[in-house]
């Protein structure tokens, strides 16, 4: 079982990801709606896996990923974003993410990406 934190400014997107993960090997331990809240929550919860949106108020995902990466070299970060251009995906990976899923996604696409993330 992997502990997982969801970071997204959209409540319906957080709830959608939670629903997809019900009954899987990923146990949701926390949700955050911006980057600052995500860092605070990460320091308390130390989840194994994070799904990270990029476009968020206060602190976006691109600036949050390296902060979390500095706190932990082992956490697996999956970017889940509507920003579908290659440059953004490459930037997110360079900052410390290990995977990228573009919104909109199907249940299977998200589940496959999370499984790949922890198998690597």
């Amino acid at each position, binding site marked *: 079982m992997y502990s997982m934190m969801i970071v997204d*400014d959209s*409540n*319906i997107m957080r709830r*959608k990801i939670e629903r997809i993960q019900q009954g899987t090997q990923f146990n949701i331990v926390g949700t955050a709606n911006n980057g600052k809240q995500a860092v605070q929550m990460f320091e308390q919860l130390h989840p194994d896996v994070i799904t990270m949106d990029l*476009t968020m108020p206060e602190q976006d995902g691109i600036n949050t990923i390296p902060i979390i990466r500095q706190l932990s070299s082992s956490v697996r970060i999956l970017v889940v974003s*509507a*920003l579908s*251009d290659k440059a953004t995906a490459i930037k997110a990976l360079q900052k410390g993410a290990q995977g990228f899923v573009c*919104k909109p996604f199907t249940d299977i696409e998200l589940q496959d990406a999370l499984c790949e993330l922890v198998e690597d």
Partner: protein
Amino acid sequence: MQDKRLTVFVQTITHYLNQTTNGGINLGTPYLNDNSEPMAYDYTGIIGISGSHKGCVYFTAPRALISHMLVKMGETDLSDSNFNDMVGEVANIISGNARQELGPEFMISVPVVIRGELEEIHLPDTVRSYVIPLFWNNYRAAIVVSLENKS
């Protein structure tokens, strides 16, 4: 705005709605609308655009359509905040997906959601808006693209 750019938004909204609602979406013929009288339904999610373009992209829909979309997604909480969230997220996804064609300099803001009339937003007065009508399950909605090309 060139027709090619309009096609990008038609493709992104079609892809989004087909995936989230299992199809059945029909698009009407896009038309130009004067920015002094922006069109809106009950809920409108607006994304500000900067960088290579300047202006905004918004998704506007009646309450009944958003309710139906939320149910299709498996959402049980049909509170007003989730209606706001839904139109904001649709606008975010359409605009974000457009970067695949328009590039990373097509910078998008976080969504702003408005209920009812669009008196609070100011569309660029030097261009007119393209309205892309959407028809789904007897509901009407629209994507509105109001952009100046800066590059």
